[in-house]
């Protein structure tokens, strides 16, 4: 039994840190790769993210003018979708996941690019922020055991949803209509009003809607937004992250991804 738990934990750590399909074809991070990435960036990313990576491309300047989100400003070193602690840079695998899958409702996925091309463009994107030269992001581990979906897990998850005060922003039923959200008090780092995610529509979850995606979001938070990290509360617990993820998924009638 103990061996089973250990194996589950190891598998989960691997999933969180490297939950990307890419394991091969990653070129070296050097000027030649950056130059190749720039060609792809100018062709596919520049329209929203801009020549200088500040999120003010010809199309980007019209996106999110009055409400978040705006296209990512790569120069700040602040990224929402990561497997790393709050405030840290994303890993290369994190960036690869976002480029490949896109962001539902906002950014298209670029799986049409070859793996090598995606790695090349990531190398170029990283060159916009000097933070990537001095910081080494490391994925957060979660030493927990996957719990099966069932009444006990959902009850525990519901209790955690209340204790963590998720309803403050996401609402009691998860509709994104909590009191702080309704008051219009939620702002992103640039001061733009931002909506709390409607948890009954997992197909619109920007950071993915699998159980692993939800646990990753709970652990890391979404930098630049009010969504905080629950890593200090979840890390080291046996099944809290899984129970809460099960409960959040249960708020929707959509079938599991």
């Amino acid at each position, binding site marked *: 039994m103990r061996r089973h738990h250990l194996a589950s934990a190891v598998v989960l750590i691997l999933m969180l840190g490297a939950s990307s399909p890419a394991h091969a074809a990653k070129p070296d991070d050097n000027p030649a790769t950056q130059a190749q990435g720039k060609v792809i960036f100018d062709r596919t990313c520049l329209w929203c993210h801009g020549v200088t990576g500040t999120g003010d491309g010809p199309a980007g300047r019209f996106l999110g003018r009055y409400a978040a989100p705006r296209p990512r*400003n790569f120069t*700040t*070193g*602040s990224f929402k979708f990561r497997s790393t*602690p*709050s*405030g840290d840079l994303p890993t290369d695998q994190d960036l690869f996941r976002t480029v490949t899958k896109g962001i539902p409702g906002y950014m298209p996925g670029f799986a049409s690019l070859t793996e090598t091309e995606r790695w090349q463009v990531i190398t170029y994107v990283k060159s916009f922020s000097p*933070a990537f030269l001095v910081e080494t992001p490391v994925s957060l581990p979660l030493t927990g055991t996957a719990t099966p979906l069932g009444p006990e897990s959902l009850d525990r998850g519901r209790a955690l949803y209340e*204790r*963590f*005060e998720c309803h*403050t922003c996401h609402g009691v039923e998860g509709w994104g209509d909590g*009191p*702080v959200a309704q*008051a219009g*008090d*939620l*702002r992103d*780092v*640039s001061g733009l009003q931002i909506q709390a995610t409607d948890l009954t529509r997992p197909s619109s979850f920007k950071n993915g809607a699998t159980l692993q995606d939800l646990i990753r979001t709970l652990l890391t*938070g979404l*930098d*630049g937004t*009010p*969504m*905080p*990290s*629950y*890593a*200090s*509360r979840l890390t080291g617990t046996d099944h809290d992250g899984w129970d809460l993820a099960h409960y959040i998924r249960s708020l929707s009638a959509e079938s599991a991804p």
Partner: protein
Amino acid sequence: MLLVALFLALIISNVPPALAQTEQGVVTVQVLYHGTIPPPTGVIVTRNPEICGTQVLLQSLTVHSPSGGLKDAVVTIDGISAPETAPAGMAPNVLSNSRCSFSPHVMSLQTGSPIEIHNQDPIMHNTHINYEMRTFINVAMVVNARPVAKTVAKPGLYRVQCDVHKFMGGYVLASTHPYFGVTDDHGNTRILNVPAGHHDISVWHERLGQLQAHVSVPPNGEATATFEFREDKTGHGRRMDR
């Protein structure tokens, strides 16, 4: 007599150069505000009024009467390096969520030391600290949460907020050296162990901005500086060496 003189000469000649250069003094600073104090801004509390109160009065100018001493101003020696031997095991700087406010409201610390975030309230806060446009940390501090610590690497101004209670705010000013202080209720602070010599010194306040002055710190002595902010946001610093 000759032997004594030779002995003293021998001791002086054997003083390591680094030690000779690290003669230290104290800088005593008073920060004053002259002008009318604007009335506090009242904010109606809609979230957790049972803990936070039904109304919060926000006042960014805390001035002692009658001295005019200004609280929560950060005084920093400019253009100075950290001592070569850093103090072992830098103590954490505790930032508490307490009665729906950040305590302390203004904190100064040396880069390389951790901020340790606590929650003493029976409600959830999220302590959200930004450095310019980048998140430094944003953590959910649920009831009875364990403290969360993170080391500050970059010098500069960090803004602290709670997204659940928008009236909560604070500041962290990080320096690359240990020569700084935050003024107390009377507008006073003392900076210890400052290397003797001429130094620029500055004061920063969240509402009134920044002033600069110059001090000469005598070996094993004390230098005094007074900063005066004025209502029209002008002001000046003056020094008085002892």
